[in-house]
């Protein structure tokens, strides 16, 4: 019998990037790799802390938390085209 059980971590099939109307634009040269944006992003789509963030636009919903929390203000929210 096949039990109707969901497999762990399978939500990644669901791409949420098309929810976005704004997107983060990162001025990489100014980034101090503090990890703040990666820690707070609700989608966990900014890569590993300790490195320059790389946004996975398959999932970014464009909330703007990363831009608001960045201590050196190197993230700008720009309209999605």
């Amino acid at each position, binding site marked *: 019998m096949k039990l*109707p059980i*969901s*497999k*762990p*971590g*399978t*939500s*990644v*099939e*669901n*791409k*949420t990037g098309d*929810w*976005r109307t704004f997107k983060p634009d990162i001025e990489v040269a100014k980034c101090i790799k503090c990890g703040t944006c990666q*820690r*707070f*992003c*609700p*989608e*966990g*789509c900014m890569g*590993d*802390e300790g490195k320059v963030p790389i946004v*996975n636009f*398959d*999932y970014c*919903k*464009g*909330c*703007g*938390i990363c*831009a*608001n*929390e960045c201590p050196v203000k190197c993230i700008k*929210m720009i309209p999605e085209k």
Partner: protein
Amino acid sequence: MVEELFVSGHRACAGCGIATSFREVMKAVGKDVIVVNATGCSEIVSSPYPQSAWKVPYIHSLFENVPAVASGVSHALRSMGNDHTQVVCIAGDGATYDIGFGALSGMLERNDDVIYVCYDNEAYMNTGIQRSSATPWKAATTTSQVGSAVKGKPQGKKPILEIAAAHKIPYAASTSVGYPFDVAKKLKKAMGIKGARFILLFASCPTGWGLDTAKSIQATKLIVETGIWKMAEYENGKMTGVFKPGKRKPVEEYIKLQSRFKHLTPEDIAAIQKEVDASWTGLE
């Protein structure tokens, strides 16, 4: 790098503070866990069949019975000789303060070996923002509307942390998603203790609070910086610590960010300030 155990693709609204909370909780707890989840946004956004955002064993049963399910899972594990797997409840304020309250009290009174995490977004969000006993004084919800006679919720917040601690459980603590290191520290501490552990985690809901999504985390810092929300610890019923935010910011800085409070008068804000000031007597 610590592995993400609450992963992308979940359907929480943009800027949802509970999603950040679950990432943080799961990274602290690690893989040796069984998550028991109540009905609410946490469950609806994370586990529409056949998908799951939880990268660990997970069970959802009902709204009201999370503590009882968790007690059962925990007793089954321990009876089978497994003394290491953590059983972690994830439940909203509606599930915790109101609907599952009796079962929660039972779980705490029996001191069952469970970590219970209540994410408090201060209303029944998943069904469209109804007031719960965690909704703060004057906040507008769809069942505490702003009319000519009554403006927002007439009652204050139930002191659930103190109620949990009064069961004399080994550990009860409050924290906020705006302080991820505090969240992680308290979960790690809880993991080193046996018995019933209760963590109250303040988490933002931009949709339900009328809050700019970008300011979702900022609000969860401000509620601590203004002293409205205390990050406290209780061991065996006694308060053993509270985070002191230093010179507290005016409560208005937190309140003005959210449209659920937009009808508040200067007198209302002054009353909240007075109550917050009084609540810190003897703690600063």
